[in-house]
């Protein structure tokens, strides 16, 4: 027989695991719903326990009921904490992806398509984000873009490594097409090597098209 808080605990374990992963595991919609349901049931229990007392409940005369109330009260709050922790861990992860310049929605959509083609669409929506999270990512992306827009010359999402050299050697890992620099256009074809200005290619390094050498 599952105890109060068992489900919440599972959520926290999921959250803990998420912290150490590079990708975002699927949203535990079922578990979230179950924990929220537990909270509502507990709240109903509290209401029905208190109902006969008509607002004149005295804990010292009925200690058994008082104890039940306290346990219910704490379990509800604990569940809430678990839910908050779970969601916050995931949004933190999503924000990190947004900061790193990934198109999170595109990424999860690709994954969905990839998974579907393999399992022949046996499992409909396998996106690892909940619909609410997709909304959140979209809105956070807008927010970040707005904040970044106020610092146009800085490029806030740029590298946080202190710049040592103006020019660096890079190797092209994936075809990235042609980029424009102030010294002319460079055609980035796979396996070629270039000596370029760091500021021009930072984005491409972050996205994994180029690898910095040396």
């Amino acid at each position, binding site marked *: 027989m599952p105890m109060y808080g068992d489900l919440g605990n599972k959520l926290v374990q999921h959250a803990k695991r998420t912290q150490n992963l590079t990708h975002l595991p699927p949203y535990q919609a079922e578990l979230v719903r179950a924990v929220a349901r537990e909270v509502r049931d507990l709240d109903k229990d509290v209401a029905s326990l208190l109902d006969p007392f008509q607002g004149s409940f005295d804990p010292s005369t009925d200690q058994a009921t008082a104890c039940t109330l306290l346990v219910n009260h704490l379990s509800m709050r604990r569940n809430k904490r678990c839910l908050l922790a779970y969601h916050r861990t995931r949004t933190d992860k999503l924000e990190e992806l947004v900061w790193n310049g990934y198109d999170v929605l595109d990424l999860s959509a690709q994954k969905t398509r990839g998974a579907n083609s393999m399992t022949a669409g046996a499992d409909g929506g396998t996106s690892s984000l909940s619909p609410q999270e997709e909304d959140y990512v979209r809105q956070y992306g807008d927010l970040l873009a707005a904040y970044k827009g106020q610092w146009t010359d800085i490029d806030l999402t740029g*590298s946080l490594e202190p710049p040592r050299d103006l020019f660096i050697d890079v190797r092209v890992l994936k075809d990235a097409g042609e980029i424009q620099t102030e010294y002319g256009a460079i055609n980035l074809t796979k396996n070629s090597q270039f000596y370029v200005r760091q500021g021009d290619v930072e984005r491409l390094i972050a996205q994994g098209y180029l690898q910095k050498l040396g």
Partner: protein
Amino acid sequence: MDIDDILREVDPTFHSVPQETRDLQDLTRAWVAERSAPELLHWPAGGLFERINDNIKRQIEKVEEMTGDMDPKTNFALIVIQTELERFKYLVRSYLRARIAKIDRHTLHYLSTDELRSRLSEMELAYATRHQALLHNHYLSSFLSSFPPVLQNLNDTAGNISMIDAPDLESAVFIRLLKDTLVESRGVDNDGEMDGRESDIVILRWSDAKRLVETGCAELI
């Protein structure tokens, strides 16, 4: 003209160090301090960032101008200016990111009182407010709206436990003393005291170091 202007004119250091150099020093100081302090520090007053932004803009224009003429003589100067520009931009970026990271971590805390709100720049305040609203909305639509109304708050303080997480002001920082001063610190068993000399380096709790840093007796390193 007020008293500050007069005082500045008689200050011997005022004319010897150009504004740009002092701005860079201020920025570097703010950057080092922000990265070591466990809590968010005040946004620098006096238009420091407006000046820095203008400087960066000016340098970018200059670089563009110099790239125009392909004279090899200017090429070396161009590389020097570009390198300097990249470093300048890095300082600003790293500084802003350090602040955003702190704000994101304890958003509700920094929005909770006027004193704390005043530490944020206008843009940061707008960002933090919006970010918190987004998060709250996300919680609401994900699960919170199905909760009983009394449990829907994010800032409960019932049972003497506040839901609002705050930065740990007791964590340790390194400071360098800028003048001779008495350093007091609270310990677990008993409090400590020492006569600090200029340029001494001390490690102590941020809550104890804060006063020294704010009065200009010490700087974070």
